[in-house]
């Protein structure tokens, strides 16, 4: 099942299947290593609707919630 990164459980691993966004957003995410086919691990969703922290290529990246909602992942 594909679901947004925001709905994934912390501590789980998944693969990015789609990024819904304009070219600017795609390219910003890609420069952080977040692109289709990339394996990631969700580390944390910060309190009060704060950013989501994922592990990608052994680096921690914090993603704003609105952007994370547009990243689809598959377990």
């Amino acid at each position, binding site marked *: 099942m594909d679901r947004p990164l925001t709905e994934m459980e912390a501590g789980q691993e998944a693969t990015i299947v789609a990024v819904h966004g304009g070219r*600017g957003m795609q*390219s*910003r*995410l*890609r*420069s*952080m*290593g977040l*692109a289709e086919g990339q394996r990631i691990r969700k*580390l*944390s*969703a*910060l*309190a*009060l*609707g*704060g*950013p989501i*922290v994922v592990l990608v*290529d*052994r*680096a*921690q*990246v*914090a*993603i*704003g*919630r*609105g*952007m994370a909602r547009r990243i689809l992942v598959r377990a």
Partner: protein
Amino acid sequence: MQAADKRNPSEIPGQARRGDRPPARVTNERQRSRATRGPTISDILLVGQPNVGKSVLFSRLTGVRTIASNYPGTTVSYTQGRMRSGGTNYLVVDAPGTYSLEPLDEAARAAVDLIDESRRIINVLDATHLERHLPLTFELLAQGKPLVVALNMSDEARHRGIAIDAQALAAELGVPVVPIVARTGEGVRRLVDSCLALPAPQEHRLDQGGHPGHHPHLQRPPHGGVRLPKSAHRHLDRDRVWQKIGGTVQRVQTLSHHHHSFAERLEELSIHPLWGSLLALVAVAAAFALVRLLGEFLIAGAVGVFGEPWLELPFGTELAFERLLGPLLARLSGILGAGGFLHRLLIGTLIDGQIDFMQSFGILSSGLFIPLGVVLPYLFSFYLVLSLLEDSGYLPRLAVFLDNLMHRLGLHGYAIIPTLLGLGCNVPGIMATRILEGKRQRFVAATLISIAVPCAALQAMIVGLVGQRGLGPLALVYGILFAVWLAISLALRFTSREFRPELLVEIPPYRLPSPRALAAKMWMRLSGFVREALPIVLGSIAAVNLLYQLGLFEALAGAAEPVVTRLWGMPREAVVPLLVGILRKDVALGLLAPLALTTKQLVTGSVLLAMFFPCIATFVVLFRELGFKDGLKSLGIMLAAVFVTGSLLNLVL
């Protein structure tokens, strides 16, 4: 920007000469403001993603000290310096960190301009995250400039069980690859040798016919010697590049298992929704307490955070000034005779027949004591604590935690970094707003810093003066300033519907701060203060004394009186300090000291001074960073805020 050319001509910095640096040449945090005004043509350009240690390598190569911190975006503009090797001078430029050459933000645009104006490029990579850094390398290869790849932090990679075959990588890329540790200098000499061995064109031309650095698999830029518009040749076939990177990494990198370190456990804890929030609260409270503890100790030898000190030791700048300078000035005072022109200029007015370093206001008494005896100790302890937060890597985590709150105020989580820097000095704070995306973000952050963030100099005086009336009034001053900060950011948020870019940042790993880098950073920041602030303080005290004696202030005070006395409830004499605040706020607050103000007036005066015109240095930087039109807008907001706050405080308090 100064070059450090004191090196022996044959010397190239490297591990062999560790610790043997030319005397400090300080660049301060005022880097060149615009890349377009750039150096003529750089011989060596350092390019890499944010936070890979370019600035550390740059310091190694040139001996020029720069500010390096453990978070992306420390070098917001470029820095240049000179490296001497084999009797030749080379111009080395450190470009701001950029993830890509696609000009999405200012850093990338600056880097692209600098690349066009360079002879050779050193591409600095982080060996611990090869796959994240290679995309930029491929973009650089497509530029066709002579290129060397420096694999930085190769010690950390080894430590984490990452082995990279540099020779295999060099074969894949078609350019030399040198593993280095910029922090210690390991491999830097080899890097310089292979960089200088590259065939460098005398003039900059984009086509480098047949230089060995050209990658066979990549399409050549579709031009021959003619410069195309920048964007035309900078878009590569992205998917192909990403596939290639995956393959390259697999072939050159071997991972072995390693155990979770303490730092990694702490990293997990500090982004946990609950524990991380608690840690953030504790860290911020501890940081403020530590700044105050250390500051008070350095000034008065007092040990304690709140209220009466627990312990008082015979130590501190107060004592030093009284014992060393006191007797000298007393003798001078006797010679000059109280009340004379020179006496008032040099020593000031005697308070109860004595020289009071805080209140006398002569050039040699308060003029020396305020910047060196009060402000410098506070600045020292503030920058020490801030540098520890920066270098350990905690600051970006704090930014991520505050992102949501800051977003509600119309700001980005990262706006906390310029704001915290502004608590030291507004000038580097406003310059650091460049790490924010978008003109509007920068405008809001810079305006807020210039109005509602008191610098360390001002805070030292506020703590000294208002703190005498108790903790309550002191907390009130900070509370009001915070409320003003909130009110202005909310007001600005609702007047603009501009899209606010969402947070997307890499969180750096925790690193143990290196004492050497810490000391260099502290030295740069503090010596910058002494060099730049001391002359202004002395000058403004002299100017104030002269204007007083000429009776000029009387005329000015008359004109401003209605607003100051009726609307704000301040005494007539407070007009002068408010005007002096335009030059230096700490000095201005010192002028309020002898006025016998009520606590209410002192609180109002401190708040108004903090908000009123930024000091001359901040003023200049504000206009330079925002441009004339937005600078005026920012000043308009300031004047409106001061007017409203002053009137409200008079009614409410």
